[in-house]
Every structure is written in structure tokens, then in C-alpha cells.
């Protein structure tokens, strides 16, 4: 049976293979995903982000188990950093989710970020679609946890869960722009530790600064390791989902997500085509030396390369 039919028949191996194909930019994989695209859109996508060691994987494990009790099909995409030097990666999120491995209603896929900034790997968005088509009701996307540049996750998810822990910094961290603004639901994990309530209070204060929020993100204290507070947290996620659906924001958000996806794909395509075009290592090295010697400036170099690229495109 071909891979398209197998995925529609909920075949794990076929879904796993298609994710690899698309991740590796295999044109055949892309064609299959195009054909199947109309079958996607049914899964609810939850992004989980937060600093390394905050407990994202452990929390994902516990949330997944709760959803399994409700007989939901769950998929988890766990992204870990790729070495910028070797291209290798150690993907270790499964360690925290070992007993989910053999649950037939759970599909866990680890992915390397493969050099994509923002903590979301290029293949992640495609993997979300494939697991959606495969039949997941809920998909968790767990990010690298690099800290303050993970805004990308919002563009791939319906609800973004921000996992914080006590003791990471003072309250000025909480008012910095960026990550703190993307959470739809906040969890303060390791809440059995000193300072957890203070951390929660600081997040609350940051959130209450903006009085005009239509959706005020809840801040829940959890101890993922001991499975404490996870049921409340899942309810908060479901409340956000209900809010999105009832307010009509769900559709709006998905349209916005689709738009930013188009922009991302165009950017990537132009980047690849332009770099392929001007990727002459010797020339780039020579120009870089001149920049350091201050005989040229980087702005003019980029201008020249870009114009040469445009000219080559027009010549075609």
C-alpha cells in the first residue's frame, strides 16, 4: 500500500517516514504532503516553551497521560538543539516520556533544530501537519528552550504554554519584551521549591499591567515530577481553547499563522536561491577580509551581491 493511504489508515511507520522525507527536503515527500493537505487542520496544537531544564518534557509527559485517560490520540514533537559545527544533535526528550513509547495512542518524534533560529526546526511545521493527518487529536510541540528568541512557536500553535521555574532571575526578566508576551497559559513548575509563589506573583503582575487583555493568561503552580497541579494546568489550556473557539479568534489565529507560514517559506526559498547563486566561498572569504581591513563596508557588499542576484534572476 502506498504511503498516502497508509498515513490515512493511521500507520505509524508511514507517518514517521514521511516526516523524515519532508525534513530532508525530499521532493517526493513534499508532493505527498501536498496531496494530503486537505486532511489536516483537525488537531489542536499546543506549543510548550520555556528555559532549558524548566521541565517541559516531564510536563508534556504528564499532560499527555491525562489526555490519554480521555481517550485522545496524542502526538509530541520534541525539538532539541543541533550543533552548528557538526550538524549533529543529541535528542534526549524521550528520556522523560519513556512509558509513553509503547502506548499505541501516542506518537513521539524528536527533531533537531537543524540550524533554524527561533527554536522551531524547519521540519517542525511539516511534522505538525503530518501528525495531524495521521490522526492526532492533540499535538504538543516542545521547543529547544533557548530562552528569549522562541517567538516562532506562536506561529505554529493554537495555545502556547510557557513553562517557568523559580530562581531564574529577578522580576526585570518578567517585564522584558519577547517570550513573556507569547504565553497563553503560564506554568510555574518545580513549585515545591523556594520562590515559586514569588515567581508566579511576578508573572501575574506583569500580566495585570495590561488591563485590556481579552484573555488573561492563567498562571498555574505545578510540580510536574510529582504530577501535582497538572490537571489544573490542562484545564487552563482547555479554557484557552474554548475562549479561542467561542470568540472566533481560533479562525483568525489560524489565518494569521498561515500567512506567516507563507512569508517564512518565501524567505527561506529566496535565501536558499540567493545563497546558491552567490555562494562562492573564495569570493565571500575575500570580501570578508576586505571588510575587516575596512577597505569595504558590509552594507555595500550585500548591496552588490543582492543586485547581482536580481540581475541573474532577471536574465533568466
Amino acid at each position, binding site marked *: 500500500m502506498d504511503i498516502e493511504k497508509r498515513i490515512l489508515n493511521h500507520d505509524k511507520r508511514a507517518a514517521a517516514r514521511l516526516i523524515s522525507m519532508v525534513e530532508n527536503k525530499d521532493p517526493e515527500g513534499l508532493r505527498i504532503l501536498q496531496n494530503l493537505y486537505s486532511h489536516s487542520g483537525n488537531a489542536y496544537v499546543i506549543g510548550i516553551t520555556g528555559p532549558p531544564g524548566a521541565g517541559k518534557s516531564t510536563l508534556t509527559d504528564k499532560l499527555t497521560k491525562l489526555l490519554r485517560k480521555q481517550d485522545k490520540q496524542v502526538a509530541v514533537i520534541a525539538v532539541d538543539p543541533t550543533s552548528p559545527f557538526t550538524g*549533529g544533535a543529541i535528542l*534526549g526528550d524521550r528520556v522523560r516520556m519513556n512509558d509513553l513509547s509503547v502506548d499505541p495512542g501516542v506518537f513521539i518524534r524528536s527533531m533537531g533544530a537543524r540550524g533554524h533560529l527561533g527554536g522551531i526546526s524547519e521540519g517542525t511545521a511539516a511534522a505538525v501537519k503530518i501528525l495531524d493527518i495521521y490522526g492526532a487529536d492533540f499535538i504538543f510541540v516542545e521547543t529547544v528552550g533557548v530562552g528569549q528568541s522562541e517567538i516562532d512557536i506562536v506561529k505554529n500553535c493554537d495555545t502556547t504554554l510557557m513553562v517557568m521555574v523559580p530562581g531564574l532571575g529577578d522580576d526585570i526578566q518578567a517585564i522584558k519584551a519577547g517570550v513573556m508576551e507569547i504565553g497563553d497559559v503560564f506554568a510555574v513548575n518545580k513549585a515545591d521549591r523556594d520562590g515559586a509563589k514569588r515567581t508566579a506573583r511576578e508573572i501575574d503582575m506583569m500580566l495585570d499591567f495590561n488591563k485590556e487583555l481579552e484573555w488573561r493568561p492563567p498562571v498555574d503552580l505545578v510540580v510536574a515530577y510529582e504530577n501535582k497541579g497538572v490537571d489544573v494546568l490542562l484545564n487552563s489550556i482547555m479554557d484557552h481553547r474554548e475562549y479561542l473557539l467561542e470568540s472566533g479568534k481560533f479562525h483568525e489565529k489560524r489565518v494569521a499563522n498561515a500567512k506567516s507560514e507563507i512569508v517564512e517559506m518565501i524567505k527561506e526559498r529566496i535565501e536558499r536561491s540567493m545563497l546558491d547563486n552567490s555562494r562562492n566561498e573564495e569570493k565571500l572569504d575575500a570580501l570578508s577580509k576586505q571588510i575587516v581591513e575596512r577597505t569595504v563596508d558590509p552594507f555595500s557588499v550585500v548591496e552588490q551581491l543582492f543586485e547581482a542576484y536580481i540581475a541573474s534572476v532577471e536574465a533568466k
Partner: protein
Amino acid sequence: MERPIRVLVAKPGLDGHDRGAKVIARALRDAGMEVIYTGLRQTPEQIVSAAIQEDVDCVAMSILSGAHNTLLPKVAAMLKAEGAEDILVIGGGVIPQEDIPSLKEQGIKEIFTPGTPTQVTIDYIKSNVAN
């Protein structure tokens, strides 16, 4: 872009010694591979299920408990039953020489015993995964 080789590094059985597995995981990462590390005390069922979901090219198991004659062939057999016999299965750890021929007959393609330089394992994986 060159496709990175994906390897599942697993510790089947009940011994708690994961230093070797971690050293291998790190060496494979430095060789440009994507290593899915699953941690200690994995059942064959967990290993096979993870290997399929992760669509790996290779399953590398480290075992020091003495249960290799039972656990390693079981993983190879279960992968075959799932139609995933194209995944390269290798093992490492404290495995007596006299056990190796029978393990190889049962689908464990290579066994790396203590003292094997990591480069030997890297080269073996690179030249023996499918494609």
C-alpha cells in the same frame, strides 16, 4: 543538504551503567549524526516502538548486565516483525566473544566490545546504514 544519519541509542535491560552509551551518543553527535537518546532500563518493546516513531537508520544498544543473548535478538526480531528490518541493529558492552556469532546470526549486525575506538563505530554506522 546532506541528510543526517539518525541513530537510537538505547540501554536495554536492568544495569544502571550509562557512561558508555553517553560517550557513544556524544561521539556520534560529533560525527554529525542525530542521536535519539532514550536512557536507562528500556524494554525491547520501548526500543522498537521508539525506533519506528523516530524513523531511525540505526539502533545502537549498550548492555552490561549479561542479558544480551535474550534482549538484543528480541529487538532485532521485533523490528523484523514490524517490517523494519532495514534498520541497522548493533550492540556494545561487556559481551563475551563466544556469544558474538550467535548474536550476529540473529540479526545483530555488529558487536563492539570494550576498548573499541569510537571512530570504528562511527565508520561502521556510516558505511552500513541503508542508502
